[in-house]
C-alpha cells in the first residue's frame, strides 16, 4: 500500500546515471582479462535499470575477481576469502532496501567458500551472484582450483591435476530450493548482458557462472571454444531468453530449453564438451528466506529491549 503522491514525488527525485558514473578507479586486472567484460556488462545493467548507487552494494571475497567492488561507484564490501556470501546475507537481512550483488571467484566460492555456497543456495535470499570462473587461482599466481580441469599443470599441480573438475552448475542445481541458475561466457557480451539482467530481475538467489578467461595464467584454456563457435550451445525459450539474429548467426548451435525443467537443466549442465549459454533453470515460486524469516512485528526499540530483557531474565540469579 503506497500513497500515489509519494510515488510521484520519489519519481520526481529520481536520477539517471551514465555508465561511466558507475565506474570508480582504473581496474588493475590484466589487459585482456575476462573480468573487464563482466564489469562492463554489470555497469550497463546498473545504468539501464536505473540502480541508485547509494542503494546498491557489491560484496566480494578475495581474488582478482573479488576486486570488483573497487571498480563500482556504489557501496561495496571487499570481504575475506570465501566469505562473500555470508557477508552478503547479513547485508540483505540488515538492509532489505539495498540491492545486493556478489562477485566471487572459483577459488573463493567453490574451494574455501564451498560450505557457504551450498547453504546460500538453500536459503534463497534475494541476491545476485556472479561466479567468475577462470578455473585457476589468479591473484596468487596460478594454483589449481576445484574447477581446474583434470591434467591442468599449475604451481600446486606440477604433474597435472589428478581430480576431475567440480562443475559449479550441477552442484548448484542439486541443492534444495535452487531458484535461478544461468551460464554466460565473458567473450559473448550480448548474451552476458541479457543473462546478467535476467539474473538481477529474478527475485531470489540468482547464480550466474561466467566462464572467464585468464590470459595471464591460462591463455589457451578456452581456445577450443573461442575458435569453434559451434561448441557454444545457446539456450533459447519463450520463458527464458531468445537470442537475436546477429547472435544466432555467430553461434549457430541453439536448442529450445524450458527453464522450468530442472532435470533437463542438470543434463545440459553435465555436458563437458559444450558450453551452454543462457538460463538453465528458473523457478520464481521458491520462497525467499528473508520473506519467511522476517516477522510481521515491527522491531521498535521497546520491542527489541523487551525481548532481550525476557531472555536475560532467564539467567538471572536472584539473591536469596
Amino acid at each position: 500500500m503506497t500513497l500515489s503522491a509519494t510515488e510521484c514525488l520519489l519519481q520526481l527525485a529520481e536520477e539517471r546515471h551514465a555508465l561511466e558514473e558507475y565506474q570508480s578507479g582504473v581496474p588493475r586486472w590484466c589487459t585482456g582479462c575476462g573480468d573487464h567484460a563482466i564489469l562492463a556488462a554489470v555497469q550497463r545493467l546498473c545504468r539501464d535499470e536505473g540502480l541508485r548507487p547509494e542503494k546498491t552494494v557489491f560484496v566480494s571475497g578475495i581474488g582478482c575477481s573479488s576486486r570488483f567492488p573497487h571498480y563500482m561507484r556504489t557501496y561495496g564490501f571487499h570481504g575475506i576469502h570465501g566469505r562473500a556470501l555470508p557477508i552478503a546475507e547479513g547485508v540483505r537481512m540488515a538492509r532489505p532496501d539495498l540491492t545486493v550483488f556478489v562477485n566471487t571467484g572459483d577459488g573463493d566460492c567453490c574451494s574455501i567458500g564451498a560450505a557457504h555456497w551450498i547453504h546460500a543456495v538453500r536459503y534463497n535470499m534475494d541476491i545476485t551472484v556472479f561466479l567468475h570462473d577462470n578455473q585457476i587461482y589468479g591473484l596468487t599466481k596460478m594454483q589449481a582450483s576445484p574447477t581446474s580441469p583434470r591434467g591442468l599443470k599449475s604451481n600446486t599441480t606440477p604433474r597435472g591435476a589428478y581430480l576431475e573438475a567440480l562443475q559449479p552448475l550441477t552442484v548448484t542445481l542439486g541443492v534444495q530450493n535452487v531458484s535461478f541458475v544461468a551460464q554466460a561466457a565473458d567473450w559473448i557480451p550480448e548474451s552476458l548482458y541479457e543473462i546478467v539482467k535476467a539474473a538481477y530481475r529474478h527475485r531470489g538467489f540468482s547464480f550466474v557462472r561466467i566462464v572467464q578467461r585468464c590470459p595471464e595464467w591460462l591463455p589457451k584454456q578456452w581456445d577450443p571454444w573461442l575458435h569453434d563457435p559451434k561448441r557454444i550451445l545457446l539456450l533459447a525459450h519463450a520463458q527464458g531468453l531468445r537470442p537475436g539474429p546477429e547472435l544466432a548467426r555467430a553461434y549457430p548451435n541453439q536448442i529450445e530449453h524450458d527453464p522450468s525443467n530442472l532435470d533437463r537443466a542438470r543434463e545440459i549442465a553435465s555436458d563437458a564438451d559444450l558450453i551452454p549459454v543462457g538460463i538453465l533453470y528458473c523457478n520464481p515460486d521458491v520462497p525467499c528466506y528473508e520473506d519467511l524469516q522476517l516477522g510481521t512485528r515491527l522491531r521498535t526499540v521497546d520491542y527489541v529491549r523487551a525481548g532481550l530483557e525476557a531472555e536475560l531474565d532467564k539467567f538471572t540469579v536472584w539473591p536469596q
Partner: protein
Amino acid sequence: MHAEVRSHIAFYLTEKQALAEAADAPPLGLRPALLARYRDLARLRYDYPVALLREAAAPAAFAPLGALVARAVERAAAAADDPARYAAPALALELELRTLAARGTPAPLATLADAAAGRLARGADAPTAEMLDRLRRALAIDAELVECDAALPARLVTHLWQSVQQRKAAAFRDVIDRLVLKLGEILQADRARSAAARTPEALRAAMGTVDRDAFDFEAMAQLLARLPERGALSSSRRQRIEATLAVLAAQRFFPASGVEPYAFRFADCADALAAFRERLPEMAKLARAVAVARLEIEGEYSEPRHDALFERILGAAPDLRALELFPHYLVCVDARALRARGHDALMELLAGALPVKVLVQSDDILEETLAGTGQVAFGAHARQLTSMAMGMNEVFVLQAAASHLVRAGERLQLAMEYSGPALVSVFSGACAHADGVPPYLYAAAAMESRAFPAFAFEPVAGPDRAAQFSLAGNPQEARDWPVHRLDYEDAEHQGVSEEVAFTLADFVACDRRYANHFERVPRAHWGAPLAPLAQCLDRQAKDLPEKLPCLLMVDDANRLHKVMVDERLVRETRRCRDFWRSLRALGARRERDAARAGVRDAQPPAAAQAPSAMEAPPAAPETAAPATERPAGDPYIETARCSSCDECIQVNNRMFAYDENKQARIVDPNAGTYRQLVEAAESCQVAIIHPGKPRNPGEPGLEGLLRRAEPFQ
C-alpha cells in the same frame, strides 16, 4: 359459455376491486404450492443462521451454521474416531441450535452450543454425551449466530466492512509505525552525535552498570570533544521531522491507542458526506506527512524542490487514488427513509467516487406499487437506484435478496474491498404484509420470481458493460422462470407430478394486500379452461382469453388449490419477465464474449511469443549489417561482440575508444598506423577487429602486415 366460466372471465378482466372494495378483500390464506415443503425452517438445513466470525485468522468473515457443524464433526472425530458415529448427535445438536437461534436475539455461538449440548446430554448415554461434549468444544468459535431477519442485512454488511477495515487499519498502522520508527531513528542518531551526548555524564549513562567503574568517562569525553561536529541536522530539517511526527501521532483515521478515532459508520448519507468534507483538510495533512516522511527517510527531501511543491499540494484537493490508505465510510439506510429524505446526498457520495459503501435495505418491494394507479409494481425503487449507480461507471453495484447474501459473500467482500464507492441493495424479506412466510423464504421467493434478481456490476472486472455485469447466482438463469417439480396426490389418491414455474404472481400471492388480484377456483370448476399463468403471458392483452391463467397454491393443511390471476397482475408478470430478459441479454453478451475470448486464448498469435530480452528489433537485419554501410577497405570492429578487454585501447587509445556501453569502436582510423590496427586485431581476444586496407601506401613493412591481416578481413 357456462355461467361460471363467464364469471371467471369477468374477474379476470375487472378484478375484484371493481366488484367489491379492495381494502377489505379477505386474505387468500394460501401460499404457492412450491413453498409447501418449507413450513418449519428450523428443521431444514440452509444458509441461515449464519455465524459472523470474529477471529482475525478466519478464512472468511462468516459461515453458515451447517458448514460449521460439518467442520466440527471433522475436528471432533479426527482422533481415530469414526466420523459416521457423529452424524446423529451432530444433527441433533444443529437442530437444537437452529431452534435456539430462531427464538430470538443473536448470541455468541459458544454460549448457544453449550446450552444446546447440555440439554441434549441430559438423558443421553455416556458415549453420546462424550461425543456431544467434543462437538461442543469444536464449536467454541468466536462468532455470533444470527438469523435471517430485518436486522440481518445491516449486521452482515457491517461485519464484513469491519473485517475489511480492520485489515486496512493494520496495514495503515504498519505504514505509520514504520515511518515513525525511522524518523525517530534519524532524530536519535542526531542526538547521539550531538555535544550533549558526549558529556561524561551522557557517556556514563550509556554504559551498562557492571563495568562502569572500569572506564574514565572524563577522558573519553575529552577525546570525543576533539572530533569535529559533523553531519548535524539542519534546524529546518529537524523541525520538519518533528512536525511530521506530530501529525502522524495525532491523526484520527486509524489512530494509535489513546487517540479518539473518527467515526466512519453512518445511518444517513448526508451525515457521511458532511463528515467526509469536514475531514478533508486533515486527510491532506496526513497524506502530506506520509509523503514527507518517506522522502526524509530516503534522504530525498530537497527543500528548494519540495517545499513549494508541498505548499501547493496542501492547498489542492487530495488525489482520490491516495485515499486508498484511508478508512472507507459505511452508510446503512432504509429504502423508505432514503426515499423520504431524497437521493441527493447518496448521489453526491457515489458520483464523487468517494470511499463509501452504502447499504440500501428494502423491506417491502411491492410497496411503491399502489401509487394511486392500482398498478402492481415490483422493486421499482431499487431498480431506479441501481441503474443510476451503474450509469456512473465507477460504482460497484451489488443487489441481492437477504436469502442470497451468504452465497454472494465473496462478491460482497469484493464490494467492501473495492477502492471506490459501492452500492449494495438488499431485500430483507422482513415484510409486514407477507402472509405467514418467514423473511428468509420471502426473500428467496422474491429472487426466485425475478422480482428482485441478484446481480453485480464490477467496474474493474473488464473494459465494457458486458464484462462488468453478472447475473450469476440467480436460479435457472437461462429460463424466464425457474421451474420445479411438484409431486402431489389427486382426489383419487393417485400420484401426480407436474413441472411448475415460479412467477412474479406467485410472489405477489404471498402478500395479503394484493389478495384482490386472486380468486380461488372452486374444485367443481376445475374442469373449466384453466392454464398455468406462465403459459398465458404471450397472449395479447386485448384478446379474450381461451384459457384462464391460474396458479397452484396450498392451504395450511397443504391441500392443493387453483387460484385465478387477474389481467393486471398478468400484465405485471409479463413486465417482470421482459425486464428479466433484458437483464439476461446483458449477461448473455458477457458469456458470448467470454467464449470468444477463450478461443483467442487457445491460439496465441505468433507475435505474442516472439519478443524476449535477447531479440533484436525486427528491422531487416540483412540490410542493416554493418559491412554494407561502410566503404570497402575501411577498418571496423564488430562492436556488439566486444568484451571490453582493453587490448586495443592499450595499443592506441586515440584510434580505439569505448562507446556508451563500454564497447570498443574505431573512432579515428587515421590516429595511428596500419601496424597498430593489425596488432590490435591480433591481440583482440574475440577477433572482431578488421584492419581493412592500409591508408598510407608508404608505411614500412606493409607487405608483411597485409599477410598478418589476412585472417581478420
